[in-house]
């Protein structure tokens, strides 16, 4: 065992771990909440930077053969996920003080990184759990809202179910092949015996559940709404990204064939339609975004229909675009002492006049999420549907696009509320007591905005590097 390699290959993870440990220390020492936040930011930034530079250097290594390995694309993915966590950390400043949030976030990120690099189901399972467990606690952390415990419980129970499903699938794979390498999944994809099929389906459904695909989505709206804004942002972006990156890793370059391909198309398709339709009637911003994320999970899983090599790129780009914009939307939300008031959609009325920056940023996010060019959300969606079409699933692609059309309305509705409400209604909304987001959150949204602009103008730059 090459300890040098062990050290360097897992450097981003090590940095995160270091961050966790130091944070715990700080937490024990007392209240240095700003210090804790800065430490966490530093740790994540360092990890992201290291991951990026390792990507740039083309670092390849397998410190634990059969368990954990790194390649440049993985490093890219890690860098992106970690970078996405930065604005989330920054915006958390408005919601939390104290070191728990950063510590839990870092643990969860650690899990995501593990999943991205996992070579065996052991590591993937660990990563999955490491990613999820802190989130259950994170949801409860916002105990300014009494519902958050309920949200956490629902997420926990269904998340636990997903764990069990995942394990059931893995065990069947294990039974069929006698191995826990993740490549068994790709092999099983093209197998025709029922046990392999069942195994594939169970694993896939577990990820459907984690990624909130209809009908396994039901936890998402409740959990998103119950959590505080930065946690929602985290769940909607990084957790989802982790799940999808893991799935892509599982599928590797294996072709998908009929029954599984249909599952991969139909459930996401239903999600797209369901999510987009249901989001129309939501009174709360977070809940709306939850349904939107259900729809987006649909697009993301669609990416798996594409041909092997393109999937990773499609998912990764989508994660970048979608993650940036979701975080942007949440970071730009005006702050409010009453967390429940903060995202009542009606309170956004006339926001343009009270807080033009927030209104503009949220608008950009909404438009991009709706997939309207030239924002990166469009390029991301384009890439996915291009791959799906190229793989020959014309009907599914067209249906998916039409489903995505349904979503335009509710995104526009947000803009409509912010910009077009009659003055009287806007004034009433203004009385709800929102105030501009804090400096950190503003920094977070500026960061995301800058990324959005860059991605809009130079999508090719990003794509070439994936």
């Amino acid at each position: 065992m090459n300890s040098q390699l062990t050290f360097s290959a897992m450097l981003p993870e090590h940095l995160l771990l270091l961050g966790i440990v130091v944070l715990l220390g700080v937490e024990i020492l007392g209240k240095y909440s700003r210090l804790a936040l800065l430490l966490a930011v530093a740790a994540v930034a360092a990890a992201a930077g290291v991951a990026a530079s390792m990507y740039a250097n083309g670092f390849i290594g397998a410190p634990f053969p059969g368990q954990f390995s790194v390649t440049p694309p993985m490093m890219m993915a890690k860098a992106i996920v970690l970078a996405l966590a930065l604005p989330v950390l920054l915006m958390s400043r408005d919601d939390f003080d104290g070191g728990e949030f950063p510590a839990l976030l870092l643990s969860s990120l650690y899990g995501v990184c593990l999943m991205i690099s996992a070579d065996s189901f052991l590591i993937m399972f660990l990563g999955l759990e490491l990613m999820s467990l802190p989130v259950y606690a994170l949801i409860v952390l916002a105990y300014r809202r009494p519902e958050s415990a309920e949200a956490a419980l629902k997420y926990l129970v269904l998340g636990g179910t997903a764990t069990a499903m995942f394990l059931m699938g893995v065990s069947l794979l294990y039974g069929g092949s006698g191995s826990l390498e993740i490549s068994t999944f790709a092999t099983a994809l093209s197998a025709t015996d029922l046990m392999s099929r069942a195994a594939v389906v169970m694993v896939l459904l577990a990820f459907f559940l984690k990624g909130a695909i209809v009908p396994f989505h039901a936890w998402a709206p409740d959990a998103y709404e119950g959590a505080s804004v930065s946690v929602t942002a985290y769940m909607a972006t990084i957790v989802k990204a982790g799940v999808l990156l893991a799935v892509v890793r599982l599928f590797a370059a294996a072709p998908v064939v009929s029954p599984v391909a249909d599952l991969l198309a139909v459930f996401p398709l239903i999600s797209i339609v369901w999510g987009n339709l249901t989001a129309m009637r939501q009174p709360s911003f977070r809940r709306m975004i939850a349904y939107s994320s259900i729809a987006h999970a649909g697009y993301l899983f669609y990416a798996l229909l594409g041909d092997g090599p393109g999937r990773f790129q499609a998912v990764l780009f989508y994660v970048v675009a979608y993650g940036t914009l979701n975080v942007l939307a949440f970071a730009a939300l005006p702050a409010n002492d009453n967390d429940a008031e903060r995202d009542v959609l009606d309170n956004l009325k006339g926001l343009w006049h009270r807080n033009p920056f927030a209104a503009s940023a949220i608008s950009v996010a909404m438009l991009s999420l709706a997939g309207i060019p030239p924002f990166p959300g469009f390029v991301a969606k384009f890439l996915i549907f291009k791959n799906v079409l190229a793989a020959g699933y014309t009907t599914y692609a067209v249906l998916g696009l039409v489903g995505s059309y349904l979503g335009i309305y509710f995104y526009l509705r947000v803009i409509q509320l912010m910009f077009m409400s009659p003055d009287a209604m806007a004034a009433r909304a203004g009385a709800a007591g929102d105030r501009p987001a804090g400096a950190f959150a503003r920094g977070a949204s500026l960061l995301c905005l800058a990324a959005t602009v860059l991605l809009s103008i130079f999508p090719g730059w990003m794509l070439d590097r994936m």
Partner: protein
Amino acid sequence: MLILREPMRVAMALITTMVSLGAIYGLLGVHFIAAFQVLIYVGAVMVFMVYVIMLLEVREASGNRRYSNLLIPGVLAFTMLVGVLGISVWRSLAPTSLPVVPEGAVFGMAEFSTLFLRDYWLPFELTTVLLVAAIVAALAVVKVSRRSHG
């Protein structure tokens, strides 16, 4: 355990199930796991659970409020799941498809220990990270609950 009304009895039933499973593991020769099953599950998890049940003393309402109103669809779907999953496995797993290996030899405590420290060093280490995270998480929740009442 699904039909019992009292949580405590349910817990007892679960413990029984777990111990039985432990016995099965033991019979299969995986003594190491069997030991863990009893130690961790029964010894830690369920004791914790029982403790909580006793602590709470909140009685579930009696009578027909034992089940949610999804009894019939739930049972139906359950039956189908067992059937479908079972048949999937049953049909694919021919009884003689794999040679039956000698029992006991490879599953001893020593072998596992070696394995853990050699091939599965990483998962083992990561378990600690997981546990740390879990502890932090649990503490955080507890802290929140204290704060909400403080």
